[in-house]
């Protein structure tokens, strides 16, 4: 927006008018550039839906089939676009159904504004119909939450909500609005929030710490970078690329950092963590300087902390001061936005190539290829593997698709083998591990980025956790591609049962319905593939479809995902079989 239009917008917005609370809510959303939101109506939010009807040409409300679907769709929207996702629900069960998505957004730092209706203020605390203490319930899983009981509070609170959700380390905000506040009138005037006195969103980058970091990096013989989602959220992809290209430092990623640097980049050495690549996990315990950028040393990344990178000096680039020294002690901590910090760092770094050190990664990759990757991507056995499905999708999408994965074996395979050319292309539930995430998240992602190919990769378990969202896909005509990798098991749990519980397969076997018929019931075309020779053509047909398409691939039932760091083991003890 140029200055002139910006000034005009500000002028229009700062004019006062007498309107209802519910109209004010819609006007706030419009002022925050919200054009799509996801939700489900109900008694306590009806006045807002009435206004949504009036403003339906300006703001598109997507009726999901469950409020959890609305929250995940808003997450998918936010993750692919970097914009704030908006979800709306009524009081009581509507609000509580949002909670899983909110918790997911909190742990994965996704900017969301959730608006819930609430019983009229005079009924608060009376156990009224559909009353629930959603502020109390959502407190531990929101960046901020607030209950509005007066219409006049609406503009300021919503402005604050958007500011808090998006700024600093992003996160979900829940605003609960009583029905009388929606009906009440106010003198409406909207001013965007630019600061909250008790909140420092982004600590200033300290140049001394950047210098200390550069000194360590320049002196390092075996440095290694592990980047996380902080690079994507901070839009520091170019800066990271410049740093690794200048210094030649091998760079690995956490599941949330995937796609920030293209998969094919020669310095991209793969994924760390429980099912990450062999080389970066093993060599975490060999490097002399570990440079963590926008990641939080989750236990799925570090394995046992007692044996994690103890030999290395650790440099931690991080926006959230609470993450520094939380799990891993940082010899140098650089607080601040990743883009600013890396921009300051770059000119202080010496050029290097670290050739011999790179060879160590290549040697370990060769072992992983021989023992794991070859059989995953080029299987010789009869049954289809999840890996070969991903490989075929890579080939046909040319690495341009956004991959939305659910949780479990297929997720690990999708993250390990997807080829990404563009950032913000790996949308998955990382921290919370929410089964049921992918189908609704893919809806949000496709609507936020209609120009992109969005492929949801889902297991047969997670698919059935939010399968009702096929209705949303049908009604909204969202051309997402849905791939269900069906092994008739809750595969990851079954894998653990096999490896650690003597194959006692307690409640992990699934007797599944005819998924293609179900998709067709929602008028979504689809196919079921059971043989290798059918796979490439089926994926071709799916990719060529201009509409939504459902592809079920029946894969080997009892395949395991390797490499694997057993829970609580050291990254050095990563297993290849």
């Amino acid at each position, binding site marked *: 927006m140029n200055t002139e239009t910006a000034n005009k917008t500000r002028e229009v917005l700062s004019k006062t008018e007498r309107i209802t609370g519910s109209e004010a809510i819609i006007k706030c959303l419009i002022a925050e550039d919200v054009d799509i939101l996801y939700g489900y109506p109900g008694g306590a939010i009806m006045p807002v839906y009435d206004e949504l009807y009036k403003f339906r040409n300006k703001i598109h409300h997507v009726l999901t089939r469950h409020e959890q679907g609305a929250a995940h769709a808003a997450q998918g929207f936010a993750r692919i676009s970097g914009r704030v996702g908006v979800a709306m629900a009524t009081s009581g069960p509507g609000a509580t159904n949002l909670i899983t998505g909110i918790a997911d957004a909190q742990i994965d730092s996704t900017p969301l504004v959730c608006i819930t209706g609430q019983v009229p203020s005079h009924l608060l605390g009376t156990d009224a119909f559909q009353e629930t203490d959603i*502020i109390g319930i959502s407190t531990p899983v929101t960046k901020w939450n*607030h209950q509005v009981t007066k219409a006049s509070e609406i503009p300021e609170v919503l402005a604050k909500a958007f500011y808090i959700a998006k700024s600093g380390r992003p996160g979900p905000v829940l605003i609960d609005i009583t029905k009388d506040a929606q009906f009440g009138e106010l003198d409406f005037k909207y001013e965007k929030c630019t600061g*909250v006195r008790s*909140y420092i969103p982004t600590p200033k980058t300290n140049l001394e710490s950047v210098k200390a970091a550069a000194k360590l990096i320049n002196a390092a013989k075996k440095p290694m970078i592990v980047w996380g989602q902080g690079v994507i959220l901070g839009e520091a992809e170019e800066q990271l690329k410049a740093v690794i290209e200048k210094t030649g430092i091998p760079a690995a990623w956490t599941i949330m950092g995937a796609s920030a640097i293209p998969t094919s980049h020669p310095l991209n050495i793969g994924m760390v963590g429980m099912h990450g690549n062999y080389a970066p996990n093993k060599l975490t315990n060999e490097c002399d300087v570990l440079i963590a950028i926008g990641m939080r040393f989750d236990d799925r990344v570090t394995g046992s902390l007692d044996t994690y990178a103890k030999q290395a000096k650790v440099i931690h680039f991080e926006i959230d001061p*609470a993450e520094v020294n939380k799990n891993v002690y940082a010899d140098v901590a650089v607080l601040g936005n990743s883009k600013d910090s890396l921009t300051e760092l770059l000119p202080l770094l010496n050029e290097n190539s670290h050739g011999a050190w790179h060879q160590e990664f290549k040697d370990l990759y060769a072992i992983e290829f021989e023992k794991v990757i070859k059989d995953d991507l080029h299987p010789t056995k009869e049954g289809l593997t999840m890996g070969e499905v991903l490989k075929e999708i890579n080939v046909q999408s040319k690495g341009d698709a956004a991959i939305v994965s659910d949780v479990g074996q297929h997720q690990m395979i999708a993250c390990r083998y997807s080829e990404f050319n563009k950032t913000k292309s790996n949308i998955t539930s990382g921290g919370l591990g929410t089964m049921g995430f992918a189908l609704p998240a893919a809806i949000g992602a496709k609507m936020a980025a209609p120009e992109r190919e969005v492929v949801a990769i889902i297991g047969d378990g997670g698919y059935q956790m939010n399968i009702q969202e096929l209705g949303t896909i049908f009604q909204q005509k969202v051309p997402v591609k849905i791939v269900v990798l069906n092994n008739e098991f809750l595969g990851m749990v079954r894998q653990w049962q096999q490896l650690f519980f003597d194959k006692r397969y307690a409640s992990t076997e699934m007797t599944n319905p005819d998924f293609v018929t179900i998709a067709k019931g929602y008028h979504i075309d689809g196919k079921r593939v059971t043989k290798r020779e059918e796979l490439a053509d089926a994926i071709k047909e799916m990719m060529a479809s201009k509409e939504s398409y459902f592809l079920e691939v029946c894969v080997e039932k009892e395949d395991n995902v390797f490499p694997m760091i057993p829970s609580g083991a050291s990254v050095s003890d990563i297993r290849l079989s």
Partner: protein
Amino acid sequence: MNEEIKSFTISIYTENNIGLLNRISAIFQRRHINIESLTTSQSEIEGVNRFVIVVNITEAQAQKIIGQFQKQIEVIRAYYHTEEETIFQESGMFKIKSDLLFNEPQIQNIIKESNARIVTVNKEFFVLEKSGRRNEIESLRRDLNIFGIMQFVRSGRISVTKEEMKITEMLLAFNNQ
């Protein structure tokens, strides 16, 4: 050095908003930390509240939870201090039958020696108030318990720090931005 469990006083300066107590107590609850005492009141700054919370934890834990408090939007600043770094006290109230004041002359001595204050006296009962360290209040409670206490209550710890708290400067800096 960080692994020894000690008594820490946590001071949190916050905006005065509904629900913040819940947000703060949830941080302890989630980490399975028991709160020994909690007091909240107006601070030296108009409109700014202060929580004083006593917990027995390690210094490493204290550092980490301070980070979690600071991260809350409506928390202006959080600190932890050892007992040596603060000046602190508690307050106890005792309700006792008035007869005892006349029938048990020893009680009058106990009151005098303990520096407790008589808040009110009527025919049925009198109320004593004693401010000081926990052990002083406890000692008075033990002495009076022999004669019978109708009601007893002790407040949480209130404390001020020896070091300066630069909250006002911090808020001014925001206003001048």
